[in-house]
């Protein structure tokens, strides 16, 4: 079995993605991605320009969007609402995680 070595790149705000790259990564069309921007689910770094770029940390959001559209047969409006609610859940989970980290493990 061949063992391949691969280097990794972080999907965070430090890496940027073009809209063409997001189309490839998500399976969504450019029109669908622009609709998600119109609904406020995605925000380009440079909204004034015609060639939009996005922060790398939204790659997973658009991949989830592609899966949800395909698997649950969602239209753009329902997809936008679903992603908004998933984002809120993720934020609340992160808050719970942060608060849990601050709770003492053993009682004094």
């Amino acid at each position, binding site marked *: 079995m061949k063992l391949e*070595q691969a280097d*990794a790149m972080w*999907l*965070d705000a430090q890496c940027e993605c073009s809209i063409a790259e997001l189309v490839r990564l998500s399976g969504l069309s450019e029109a669908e991605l622009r609709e998600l921007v119109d609904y406020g689910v995605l925000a380009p770094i440079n909204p004034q320009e015609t060639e939009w770029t996005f922060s790398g940390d939204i790659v997973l959001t658009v991949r989830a969007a592609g899966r949800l559209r395909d*698997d649950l047969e969602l239209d753009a409006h329902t997809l936008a609402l679903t992603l908004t609610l998933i984002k809120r859940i993720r934020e609340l989970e992160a808050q719970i995680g*942060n608060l849990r980290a601050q709770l*003492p493990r053993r009682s*004094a």
Partner: protein
Amino acid sequence: MKYKDYYEILGVARDADTDAIKKAYRKLAHKYHPDVSKDPAGEERFKEIADAYQTLKDAEKRAAYDQLGRHQPGQEFQPPPDWGRQFGDTQFSFDDVDLADLFAGLAGGRRHAGQPGGSFKRPGQDYEVTAHITLDEASRGTTVELNLTVPEYDAQGRVHRVARSFKARIPKGATDGQRLRLRGKGGKGMGGGPDGDLYLNIALHPHALYRVSGHDLYLDLPLTPWEAALGAVVEVPTLGGSVHLKVPPGTHAGQKLRLARRGLPKPSAGEGDLYAIVQIVVPTVLSERERALFKELADGSTFNPRGHFEQEIRHEA
């Protein structure tokens, strides 16, 4: 080939109409879709549900499936002798194939074979896997070995499950829930299609001392009552080695003492902080001398930590 009962998976009768199949699929998808569900077994369960739906929603695929006959789920079986000629390609071997892969390759009841060297372009599949690493590995960076069994298409467009192994270098800066993309390390593309990507989800093993919040770390710091009252210098372990932490006089339980840049390193630059959360611990067994000293303190001190109760208690009386 192992049999899967797609009707049973969707919980529908074998004569269910398309609407009933769609409704059953949607109900189960809402429950098990990995982007929606928190069920750890959800992803595997959803894959089964989606495979079942992809076959049963298509009239020709459903007819091909029905002609496989009924068997016990998981039972090894062979399709009827003329099945391959009717629905697939005649040279096809059913021995090492997954039922879902077989039906994924059928389009409109016919296997859509790839055209070697032709214009049939298919991008490679993306894979998502979780890499479990320790806090120390996240801090220093590490290399993980990943073993995956993944579907890959051969030159004829047939799907095969193949074992693939990777060594993936995780640079320092990882923390729980962070994602990495390994470009081109997913499934192989076909007919000039690009290779897929591999997505790594970082999961940190729990640590005996530290709790993680982003790139910050939290540590319980037990202090004696006199260390908290008088102040002290205590030795505190950090990922980079022990440090001396100055505890100011009058420190109270729950107070967070910050050790700047002693947390996890961040991917681009800098480090998170380490927070020592003060716990005031009293001895459960006192020596004679300790008891006498505490008694002396109790008799001599005017400190009242419950002063704010008094107004409420007077009000009740």
